[in-house]
């Protein structure tokens, strides 16, 4: 039976060994996967953020030739499946984007009404087309698409042509004065057109539409006003989509800005030379939203302009920024429909893709065409179409997901539309469609640092001094209670601290501002004064044995706070007409926000005190006794030993405690969310609120659209927080480990 037993033993042994191996494998796989999962956080954040800084890509899709009539205006539908082109002679042709096959063709103006001498397009998003005739009349047409989905979700796109202001032409210039240049916009009820006649007259034409309620018939009323300009010199005309501002470019490189809100009294507001050292303006375009102009000149330079109001409310045309120039004279500029991006093409056919707010030149690609006469984006800016004078048409697919983000847009001051100067602004969303997103992380970072620094000013002295006392002077029996009590503070949910700060402390501080401010210098002074009384009163001295001072001081501190608040109230009554906040505002213009940095500093300070206290206390406590004993033996007082020996030796540990506390203050979310007004302002005032990165993420993240620039910028903010705290904590940890080794050797 012996061999059998041996065999069973070895098989049992084998099973045990197998189990051992299996156990090790499970542990290794499990352990590594947990660690990988944790590290995944960083990589995932990175993965989401990276596309922000990826550039754009432009790939040619199709190219085809059309009958040899050049296009003067172009457009694409939402899916870039069909398009339209308008010839300079007024012939509109719908085509299939895949091969250029004609879908429909039509002359806008019947031959009997004269020849078409000028065509133009309104705001690209409206697809409004204009045609001016040799007879001095204009016609307003609008292109649209009917998109249908069948049951299998296949879409069919049907182009259509409408005449929102009637098929009748409107009189623009005098009869016989052929229209040379044309611009205009049409809204639901009102259309405004500007026509430059061959005679040099510039006419502002306003049409208002009334729809008859009964039979839906449309009646149009028009008014005409002559503009006081020499039309013969005008090279480009641009009207904003709100029909309020008119810009005329002249052949000497000047731009005239007219206020046409009152259509009967157009007023010249400003005239400026906009081309610097170039000779003339060769292209003029308006960005979406109808505020900014992009000027292109014969030297290939591109610049953005808009009217800026000075303190006296006078508007002046200002150059906001210059873009990277194109190699040759700029030929055409085409804006995106919703974002502040645009395409510019030069005489040599090189196309540049830009974004205005982010001051970004995304790329330049050769279009393969020369002498481009028309260019347009598709509504979603996913495609663009270009046409040359030779009748060649090319379509490009554009992949440009995040043009509005750049280093300068995130961190530098940016001159936003309708602002008087470059500023740091965070404003990520708005109700309107063509809104300019303002993604400056600077005010948010400023808010985060402001909250962290003020709270550290409050917390560090309390925590470090407290730690020195607890570790060095306090009797062990008291220390056993005090240390866990203060550490318990760390466990308090910050949402409770935030709630108390916002709803209890903030009104209290507002009411007792002077008292609270007095507490800062006077409470420490009063504790020192208490020491004096104790040292001069033997009876008290007997009552307060060494190591129990902190317990004895509790009533003193409570009394001191009460006294200061009472004193503050009295002084406010006496000196500041009963309200310091009111007085500050009246005398010095210092605004007071109820949920301000002072409140936040106290609340976050409260949250980080235990962290700093606990780590510094450990550092002080682990200072080798030999050092302190030596110091005391040499005749130093306990206080001298504490300051010169203990504190000095423990200083790296205390430093690391402060770093970790700082890391916590930077990432604190609920307190800043609840105890500040969350306005992203950059103001160092203690009495103003702030908006921190963390609170901003918590507020905006749930509403942000997945994959949008906003979403990714919020991820970037989270990554910044992650990296800052991670690096700070790692440094602190390394310092602590070094310190521990040093003590071990002592």
């Amino acid at each position, binding site marked *: 039976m012996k061999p059998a037993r041996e065999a069973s033993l070895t098989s049992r042994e084998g099973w*045990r060994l197998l189990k*051992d191996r299996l*156990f*090790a494998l499970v*542990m*290794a796989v*499990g*352990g590594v996967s*947990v*660690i990988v*999962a*944790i590290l995944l*956080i960083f990589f*995932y*954040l990175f993965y989401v953020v990276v596309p922000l800084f990826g550039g754009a890509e432009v790939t040619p899709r199709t190219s085809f030739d059309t009958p040899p009539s050049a296009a003067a205006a172009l457009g694409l539908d939402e899916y870039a499946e069909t398009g339209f082109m308008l010839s300079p002679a007024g012939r509109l042709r719908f085509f299939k984007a895949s091969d250029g096959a004609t879908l429909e063709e039509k002359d806008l103006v019947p031959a009997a009404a004269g020849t078409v001498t000028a065509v133009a397009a309104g705001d690209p998003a409206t697809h409004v087309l204009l045609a001016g005739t040799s007879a001095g009349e204009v016609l307003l047409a609008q292109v649209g698409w009917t998109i249908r989905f069948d049951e299998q979700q296949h879409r069919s796109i049907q182009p259509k042509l409408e005449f929102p202001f009637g098929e009748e032409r409107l009189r623009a210039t005098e009869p016989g004065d052929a229209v040379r240049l044309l611009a205009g916009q049409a809204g639901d009820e009102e259309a405004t057109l500007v026509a430059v006649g061959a005679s040099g007259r510039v006419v502002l034409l306003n049409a208002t539409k009334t729809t008859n309620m009964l039979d839906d018939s449309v009646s149009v009323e028009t008014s005409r006003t002559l503009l006081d300009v020499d039309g013969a010199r005008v090279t480009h005309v641009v009207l904003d989509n709100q029909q309020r501002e008119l810009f005329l470019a002249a052949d000497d490189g000047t731009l005239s800005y007219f206020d046409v809100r009152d259509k009967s009294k157009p007023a010249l507001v400003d005239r400026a030379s906009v081309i610097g050292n170039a000779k003339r303006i060769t292209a003029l375009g308006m960005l979406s939203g109808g505020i900014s102009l992009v000027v292109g000149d014969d030297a290939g330079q591109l610049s953005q302009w808009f009217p800026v109001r000075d303190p006296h409310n006078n508007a002046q045309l200002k150059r906001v920024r210059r873009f990277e120039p194109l190699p040759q004279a700029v030929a055409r500029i085409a804006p995106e429909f919703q974002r502040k991006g645009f395409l510019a093409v030069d005489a040599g056919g090189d196309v540049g893709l830009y974004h205005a707010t982010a001051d970004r030149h995304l790329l330049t690609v050769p279009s393969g065409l020369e002498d481009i006469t028309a260019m347009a984006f598709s509504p979603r800016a996913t495609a663009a179409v270009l046409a040359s004078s030779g009748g060649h048409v090319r379509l490009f697919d554009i992949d440009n997901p995040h043009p509005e983000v750049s280093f300068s847009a995130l961190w530098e001051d940016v001159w936003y539309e309708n602002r008087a100067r470059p500023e740091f602004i965070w404003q990520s969303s708005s109700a309107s469609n063509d809104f300019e997103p303002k993604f400056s992380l600077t005010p948010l970072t400023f808010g985060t640092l402001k909250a962290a620094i003020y709270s550290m000013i409050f917390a560090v002295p*309390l*925590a470090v*001094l*407290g730690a020195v*006392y607890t570790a060095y002077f306090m009797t062990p029996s008291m220390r056993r209670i005090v240390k866990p*009590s*203060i550490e*318990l*503070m760390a*466990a*308090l949910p910050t*949402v*409770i601290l935030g*709630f*108390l700060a*916002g709803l*209890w402390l903030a009104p209290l501080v507002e009411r007792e501002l002077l008292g609270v401010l007095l507490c800062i210098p006077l409470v420490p002074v009063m*504790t*020192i004064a208490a*020491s004096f009384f*104790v040292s001069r009163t033997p009876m008290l001295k007997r009552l307060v044995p060494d190591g129990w*001072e*902190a317990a004895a*001081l509790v009533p003193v*501190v*409570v009394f001191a*706070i009460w006294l200061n608040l009472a004193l503050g109230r009295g002084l*406010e009554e006496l000196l500041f007409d*009963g*309200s310091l906040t*009111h007085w500050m505002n009246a005398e010095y213009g210092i605004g007071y926000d109820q949920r301000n940095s002072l409140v936040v500093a106290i609340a976050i300070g409260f949250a980080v*005190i235990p962290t700093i206290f606990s780590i510094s206390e450990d550092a002080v406590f682990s200072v080798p006794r030999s050092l302190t004993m030596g110091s005391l033996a040499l005749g130093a007082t306990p*206080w001298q030993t504490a*300051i010169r020996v203990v504190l000095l030796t423990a200083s790296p540990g205390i430093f690391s405690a402060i770093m970790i506390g700082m890391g916590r203050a930077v*990432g604190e*979310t*609920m307190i800043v969310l609840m105890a500040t007004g969350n306005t992203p302002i950059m103001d160092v005032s203690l009495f103003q609120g702030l908006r921190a990165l*963390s609170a901003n*993420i918590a507020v905006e*993240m749930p509403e942000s659209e997945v994959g949008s620039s906003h979403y990714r910028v919020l*991820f970037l903010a989270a990554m910044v*927080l*992650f990296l800052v705290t*991670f690096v700070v*904590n790692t440094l602190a940890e390394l310092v602590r480990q070094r310190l521990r080794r040093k003590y071990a050797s002592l």
Partner: protein
Amino acid sequence: MNANTRMPTWLADWFRSGSPGVYLTAGAVSFSLVMVFGLLFLITVRGMGHFWPAEVVRLSLNGGDTKYALGEVVDEETVSAQRLLDNGIKVPAGQLTVHRVLLKIGNRDLHGFDFQWFNDTEYDEVRRPRKAVVIEREEWGNYYGFVTGILERDQPVTYKTSPWPQLRKRIARAERLRKAIDEVQNEQMGAINYALERLRLDTRRLELDGITSGPPLEAIEAERGRLKAEYDELAKRLATLNERIARDVLTVETVNGEPGKIPFRDIVRAFRPNAMSLTDKLGHYAVKLGEFVSTEPREANTEGGVFPAIFGTVMMVLLMSVFVTPFGVIAAVYLREYAHQGLLTRVIRIAVNNLAGVPSVVYGVFGLGFFVYFLGASIDQAFFQAALPAPTFGTPGLLWSSLTLALLTVPVVIVSTEEGLSRIPRSIREGSLALGATKAETLWRTVLPMATPAMMTGLILAVARAAGEVAPLMMVGVVKLAPTLPLDGNLPFLHLDRKFMHLGFHIFDVGFQSPNVEAARPLVFATSLLLVIIIVALNLAAITIRNRLREKYNAAET
């Protein structure tokens, strides 16, 4: 030294003794202690006070159209006249300070507000009418006034001297009926709706598989018909119940004699605080406290209980513990016992340690992006196609919240377990190995059992942290009002995809986003107190376990 010669010796002695410095540092400790205990005291007093039936006072106003004001004194203060003027409040000329009281006057349906300040110049006499009644209502907050009679089907009910016996009886009846209605409406009808929704999904699933007719669809149709019939039956019962509960109406009048009617179905509770004895008040207190922890919130969370929030918090934390414990322990065992103790392990250990210091909101962002939008959306595509485009797991919910918090707290468990493992004396391991046990056996039979208290400590600390975190949850699954609990009687009982309520978020939401912050504030204090008690208790447990553990091993080492 120059300074010494000028300074009186006693002062110099005092300075040289270092006593001011010692006292300054001691003052820092005292100040911190005052802050901690002051805060706990504040929350306790405000939180506990909420349930006490405060007395109702009647102020005789000395001007204007209204004669009296009736309500609970909530606050009183002395403020400078200037401050009131700044806020646009009229103050008699020549007065520097004003003493004023804040009265909760209730009757929001009449006034549009519940709170009003009265300067002490505005009223003369303060009385506490014994008959003044406080009626807690389902809607519009409290009613303060006097009972004038009871109507049953619009006919006055006769009673001898006091309407209260009748009143109590009828309130109890309405309460019973309300429960029955609730049962029918929320539980039975809710279950049918849930079943109907599942049938809809089944149909859709079949449709996706290309089945549009045949026996499975007929079965579903039959089932649907049966459910609809059942639903109609319940609707009838509900109508009867509604009719029955509408039978009684209480007639009341305000302190100024304005008559009013309150249907009994809207009365949660009616009491006369001024006529209550101490025992009555204690009883009332206990009932209110019970209501707070066991019932659902009313009136946009500003009244009633926080039961769903407690339940949600507990569910989330339990689920998180299920995830965090095994993984945290495995990672710690791997790092301490199996991994090669080189530079890489050291770096990983520091990294894990520091992850505990990464802001929680970052975990929330990760949870939303990775779990909800990436994992959740993939799960929906794979398993819940029938429900699309409505997301099942591709939206914030309980599962993602617990996973996010598990990730947030796993460093705590790892660190604590590792510490426990490192404290186990070498002699024990060596003893086990010397007796021929394999490494796995040594770990499983001796080391891990001895480290259990450390794991417990880690878990408790993790739970304490998770229970108080709000910022990440705001992104991955918490809502202000969840219509259903994540655990109910409908299959599969535990609904991981549901959104839930949470005590911490409740505090944020009610305190900051509720339309009636002033009225809700006492409730927020009470909720805070509850959360603080839970968290402090958990932490104390962890500390106790840790201390026991240390003593045990100190004994083992010697």
